[in-house]
């Protein structure tokens, strides 16, 4: 639980950059379609745990980077991350009360909303949105959430400990 502490912007940017690298590492096609959305999870983690320091605007700006890298219409992932961030803010009190291992129940719908916004925008843009496997990252991310959130907390605690 690090929601009560003040985490520096540098720490958040560093973890986000690391998550983005993990998200972009080239993988063969099979694993790539089910790859957990590490970057999304990291953004949601910070929104859940530092809502006053990492709010919707930073989440939106983080999404702009994803759009620039993926070549998607500018603000597509940004909007999806902001909407998912909004949902996270709404459920953050529950998140804080749930043990990590049970949090996938709460975070899965948020990830579903995230993916649905992308699905919707892709559909409006006239892309092929039929494949069922585009929803796979929702499941894999939700399953991986406890481990990833634990790792994030561990990393963030380095800073907390140094200050106290």
């Amino acid at each position, binding site marked *: 639980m690090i929601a009560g502490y003040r985490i520096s912007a540098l720490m958040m940017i560093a973890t986000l950059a690391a998550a*983005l690298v993990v998200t972009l590492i080239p993988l063969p096609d099979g694993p790539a379609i089910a790859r957990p959305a590490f970057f999304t999870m990291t953004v949601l983690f910070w929104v859940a745990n530092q809502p006053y320091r990492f709010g*919707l605007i930073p989440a939106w700006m983080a999404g702009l980077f994803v759009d620039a890298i993926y070549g998607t219409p500018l*603000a597509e992932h940004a909007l999806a991350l902001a909407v998912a961030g909004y949902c996270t803010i709404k459920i953050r009190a529950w998140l804080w009360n749930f043990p990590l291992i049970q949090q996938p129940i709460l975070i899965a719908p948020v990830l579903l909303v995230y993916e649905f916004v992308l699905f919707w925008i892709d559909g409006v843009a006239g*892309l092929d949105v039929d494949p069922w496997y585009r929803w796979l990252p929702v499941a894999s991310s939700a399953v991986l959430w406890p481990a990833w959130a634990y790792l994030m907390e561990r990393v963030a605690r380095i800073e907390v400990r140094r200050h106290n």
Partner: protein
Amino acid sequence: MKFEDEHNSRVLSRRVAPGLAIVLIAIASIAMMIIDDVGKRLAPVRSALAVVAQPIEMAAEWPGQTLAYLDQYFDRGALLRENERLRQNNLLLQGRLQRLAALEAENERIRALLASGSRLDQNVLIARIMSISPDPYRQYVKLNKGSTDGVFVGQALVDAHGIMGQVTDVTPLGSRAILISDPNNGVPVEVNRTGLQTIAQGTGHAETLTLPFLPNNADIEVGDLLVSSGLGGRYPPDYPVAKVRSVRHRPGGEFLDVAAAPTAELDRGREALLVWSPPEPDEPEPETVEPTNESEPSGGDDAAASGPTPDAVNSGAEADTR
């Protein structure tokens, strides 16, 4: 636990409520997407973001590159074998090139006689494929050459076996190319055997293109080679694009159901060539060769340029699009 900001004034807080923020963000995002889609007017924003993101992309490439490097480092035998193979291949290609040089010269002369505007030589630039689309639903590759190397939007991307795609976004240090297999991309092609013109459309799968606009009586067979026709001016003419894999006649349908397999290795290669024709200097070319066919009656070259042969139609169209 305490929340640092909870004692802030409820009335005069600087904070925007999340509910209001999300509405504003949604409006701004949708506006941005529309502006981005309509005039590509957000290209500077996009390229600025891409420059900032460049180190992250390079870091993501690093593990794969290190693995490949270690692989080569420890497997000397494979390296030697590859070297041997490349040496032989090089010899073979050199041999062919000698003949090609002679043929090219001959072709130039004959074209000069016809006073046709099209030229054979093209500039090439070798680019390394950094990553194949991180987004599995879009068919893109990233290249390690950008505007500092002279890459520009619209350049065609070619590998050893055929056309791969064209450049769509350029940043100073990198660029992105859409592959011919992307559903949003079509290549003007002609059937090599008959000269039949059509369009090959991507399907989203790297192994399949479709030819949606061929009428039922079109002369096309399994195994036909499709080469780029150069119409539209985006892709250079006469490069192989795909081989017809299946032709199906749907009873009652107006068009044939034709599937073709791209000849280029869209999802495997590590290197590709950026190809472009030298833009301006080929305009005065016909005048300099004019004296050589002085003996011909005037108007002869006009007839040749607009004649009905597929070749002349091709070069005429190409000159139009320049």
